[in-house]
């Protein structure tokens, strides 16, 4: 009698290979995805690879703050000689700066080549004239209770900006209209959206996410458990 071949376990094999492949992608997923999106980069402006442009919108409260150009103000106060309350028109009349930088989120996604336009903090400091004891800057969001801090030195890094335009258009609501902080060297949670106030304080403290365990100095690739 011919010997019966053992039944092949294709189903189990497929299941295990898929699970193992998926779990191992925790080690290689991001870099492979990076290569894929780079390879299709030129075509992506015509047919986006993902429908979100790579962005995800994170908020901490029930609804996003609105923006009324007539009533909106940016209060800059604290340890300064001359506190100011900037209208939107006044803000737009300050020297305009532009930059193209990559936005990194601490959860792992990035958006390369974002075109920002806005105001350098040094130009705002020229208006308010910080006192010598001002060592930290508190950025207050209209999305309460979101705040975050930079040191005075960090706030003057080359690509730090108060951005009112993104990719050639006024900052959209979900990205923090009308004004957000941009510090590309740090993860997104430091890039406070819906800015309504800037307070100069003696030193930087823990912001919203830092109080939940995130690093205060959120350097991309060198903080929050990541090392590059």
């Amino acid at each position, binding site marked *: 009698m011919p010997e019966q071949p053992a039944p092949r*376990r294709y189903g*189990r094999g*497929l299941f295990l290979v898929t699970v193992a492949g998926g779990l191992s992608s*925790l080690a290689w997923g991001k870099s492979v995805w990076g290569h894929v999106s780079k390879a299709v980069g030129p075509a992506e402006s015509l047919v986006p690879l993902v429908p979100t442009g790579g962005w995800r*919108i994170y908020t901490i*409260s029930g609804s996003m703050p609105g923006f009324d150009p007539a009533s909106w103000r940016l209060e800059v106060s604290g340890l300064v000689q001359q506190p100011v309350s900037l209208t939107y028109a006044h803000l737009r009349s300050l020297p305009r700066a532009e930059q193209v930088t990559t936005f990194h989120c601490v959860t792992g996604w990035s958006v390369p080549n974002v075109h920002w336009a806005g105001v350098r903090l040094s130009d705002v400091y020229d208006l308010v004239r910080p006192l010598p004891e001002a060592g930290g800057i508190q950025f207050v969001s209209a999305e309460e209770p979101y705040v975050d801090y930079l040191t005075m030195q960090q706030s003057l890094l080359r690509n730090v900006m108060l951005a009112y335009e993104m990719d050639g258009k006024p900052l959209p609501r979900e990205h923090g209209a009308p004004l957000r902080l941009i510090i590309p060297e740090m993860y997104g949670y430091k890039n406070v959206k819906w800015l309504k106030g800037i307070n100069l304080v003696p030193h930087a403290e823990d912001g919203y996410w830092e109080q*939940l365990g995130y690093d205060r100095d959120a350097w991309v690739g060198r903080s*929050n*458990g990541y090392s590059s």
Partner: protein
Amino acid sequence: MIRYVKRFSRTERTLHWVNALCFFFLLATGLILYLPSLAVAVGRRPLIKDMHFWSGISWISLLALVALLGDRRGLLRTARELERLDTGRLNMGQKVNAIVMASFTILFFVSGLLLWLGERDTRFRFASTVVLHDGLMFVALALLVGHLYLALIHPATRHSLRGMTLGEVREDWARVHYPKWVSDTESGA
């Protein structure tokens, strides 16, 4: 007179519909979290996030509960059917779909838990977790679209929906699509 043959047990059908219901709920809440336009329109992110997380936990728990309280021996028999990628009661496409979705369930659950834990503790934070969770969603969505087309629209196959709702399918239909299964059933194999 139309004759019917039993295709899916009560446990199999319960498992399928619990899975489908939870999947649709997770897909809806997940897309609100993922797509900026929906995020703006709906808002309430903290609430949607909680709903998404707890429906994920419920998904896995309910599947385990149905399997434990249902016909376990029957489910093991189904699992053995899935081992051989030939056409019996199920065809190869259906088997591959079921196996891939089962492994995706594990991967969705693990990557979702890692996203949740990573927000609380850097030891659970990996740069690729979000790529895995999103990638699974895109592939699962493609499989779902194909599955829905065959189960609801395609004239030759849509009768199979009756098997997953009432448990039985027409014998003449089964004889065309699954001849080996029908003859095996008739001979008592």
